[in-house]
């Protein structure tokens, strides 16, 4: 039996996105955005949309595969997949599911997609408007604990307390995203730089998160085309190979509203995933050239980077300095498109795309000779997911 691994067998052949808008500003219906992003990814790859035979998404995307396959005139639908739960934590998971379907022979050309038009549907950052709540929600909502920032703040607060980590560490993460967005014309925050002083002066949302520690809410869509590695070589772009991926969480990680009960509260929940990721890839943290780490909130990035082995928690204050986090010369260039904070909150699929662009040499903040590129999805939720891409040189 062949080794059970994704390593080197699937590649990202195409990436695409719509214009990214502030929330509520999309001029077109969400499904139109979704279709346009998929067509853009096909164009980028040089793939006929009729050849798409698989669809994978996450976080209950409202655009279902039968609808999309029908609309696009796909010849055959062979794989239709939704990564359960975890909100943006499913971004790398959807990529991994697509890759697994290809390795397993279920499909040959799978698109991973995410579309959001928050003006046309509900917003993430608002509390529930129902008159009553039950179940796990009833244990937090009546106390005014009802938005993602509020649910995750105690996790970051405890981690910072345990390891003597100050606000400056979170600030450096926010500044890195805004720094990179200034080079990226796609970024919603392009032309809107952030300074240390502006961060410090910004209002609290919920401690320890200032305004700039929290992701945007945006409208738009993004899509990624995956194919077998051998097919990707014949397509338009330099392939970004999947080297490894991992999905899940550790012991008894409660889903979000009951997250306060999770035994390991002070965690982004990558402790068990990162070793599996590196084992599949045959690599370690020292081999990673560039990182895209999902910023729902900066505290989650802090814990993600620790749990992926880039530095120890007690070294965070030394490591998390802006100079270390920016391309091209930082020790660990982070969120090089601007990420969820400053490019667009496309639920982290824009981070997957940026990780691929780094392997292709197409980033607006390119890390020279980036061969190994990491994309982390949705810290602090469950399940989370994480994926490593590599250039041909890594195979």
């Amino acid at each position, binding site marked *: 039996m062949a080794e059970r691994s994704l390593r080197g067998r699937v590649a990202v052949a195409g990436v695409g996105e719509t214009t990214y808008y502030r929330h509520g500003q999309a001029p077109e219906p969400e499904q139109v955005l979704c279709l346009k992003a998929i067509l853009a990814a096909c164009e980028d790859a040089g793939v006929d949309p009729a050849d798409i035979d698989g669809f994978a998404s996450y976080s209950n995307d409202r655009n279902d595969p039968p609808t999309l396959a029908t609309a696009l005139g796909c010849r055959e639908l062979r794989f239709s997949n939704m990564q359960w739960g975890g909100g943006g934590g499913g971004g790398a998971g959807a990529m991994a599911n697509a890759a697994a379907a290809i390795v397993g022979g279920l499909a040959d050309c799978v698109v991973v997609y995410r579309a959001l038009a928050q003006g046309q549907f509900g917003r993430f950052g608002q*509390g529930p408007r129902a008159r009553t*709540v039950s179940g796990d929600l009833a244990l937090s909502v009546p*106390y005014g604990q009802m938005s993602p920032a509020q649910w995750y703040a105690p996790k970051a607060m*405890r981690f910072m307390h345990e390891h003597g980590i100050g606000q400056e560490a979170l600030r450096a993460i926010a500044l890195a995203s805004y720094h990179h967005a200034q080079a990226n014309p796609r970024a919603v925050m392009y032309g809107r730089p952030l300074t240390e002083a502006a961060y410090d002066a910004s209002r609290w949302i919920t401690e320890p998160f200032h305004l700039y520690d929290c992701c945007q809410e945006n409208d738009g869509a993004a899509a990624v085309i995956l194919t077998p590695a051998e097919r990707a070589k014949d397509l338009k772009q330099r392939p970004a190979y999947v080297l490894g991926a991992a999905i899940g969480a550790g012991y008894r990680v*409660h889903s979000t509203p009951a997250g*306060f009960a999770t035994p390991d*509260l002070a965690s982004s929940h990558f402790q068990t995933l990162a070793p599996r990721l590196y084992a599949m890839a045959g690599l370690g943290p020292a081999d990673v050239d560039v990182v895209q780490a999902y910023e729902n909130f900066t505290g989650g990035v802090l814990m993600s980077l620790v749990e992926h082995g880039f530095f120890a928690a007690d070294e965070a204050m030394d490591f998390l300095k802006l100079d270390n986090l920016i391309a091209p010369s930082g020790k660990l260039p982070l969120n090089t498109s601007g990420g969820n904070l400053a490019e667009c909150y496309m639920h982290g699929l824009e981070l997957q795309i940026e990780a691929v662009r780094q392997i292709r040499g197409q980033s607006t903040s390119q890390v020279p000779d980036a061969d190994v590129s990491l994309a982390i999805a949705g810290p602090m939720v469950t399940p989370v997911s994480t994926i490593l891409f590599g250039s041909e040189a890594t195979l």
Partner: protein
Amino acid sequence: MSPHTYLPDGLPIPVPEHNRLSAPFWEGLRQGVVRVQRNPRTGLHHFPPQWIAHDDRGFDLEWVEVEPRGRIYSWTRVWHPVHPALKDACPYIVVVVELPHADGVRMLGNLLGDPRQEVPFGAEVEAVFEHHPDGEPPFSLLQWRLT
């Protein structure tokens, strides 16, 4: 803000599920006691409410009363209202309270007192039952204050 409640009226109110899983907890708060589930064979406490014991997979978790005290495991102070009822209620403090005498199960609540107070990790707190007899249906919340 009503002098008897920490947050203003108008937030979603807690009601047990149709299957009544959490009903003994909420009924306990109405009576001024804190109840959690316990595995009758191993004694392991469980919270939030579950159908099955996670240590030996028995479906017969029992409800028991526990001492209404704990210690602050983590917290946040909310400054940005995400519900219309909270528009003039910020800041307010949410604490994660651990019950060391019940296998460290955790609960959420508000920390009563000055919303701008320092919140010490590990500090001992005691439960305060915040009754809402005029709720439809009536309910009680579990709040906490430093001891």
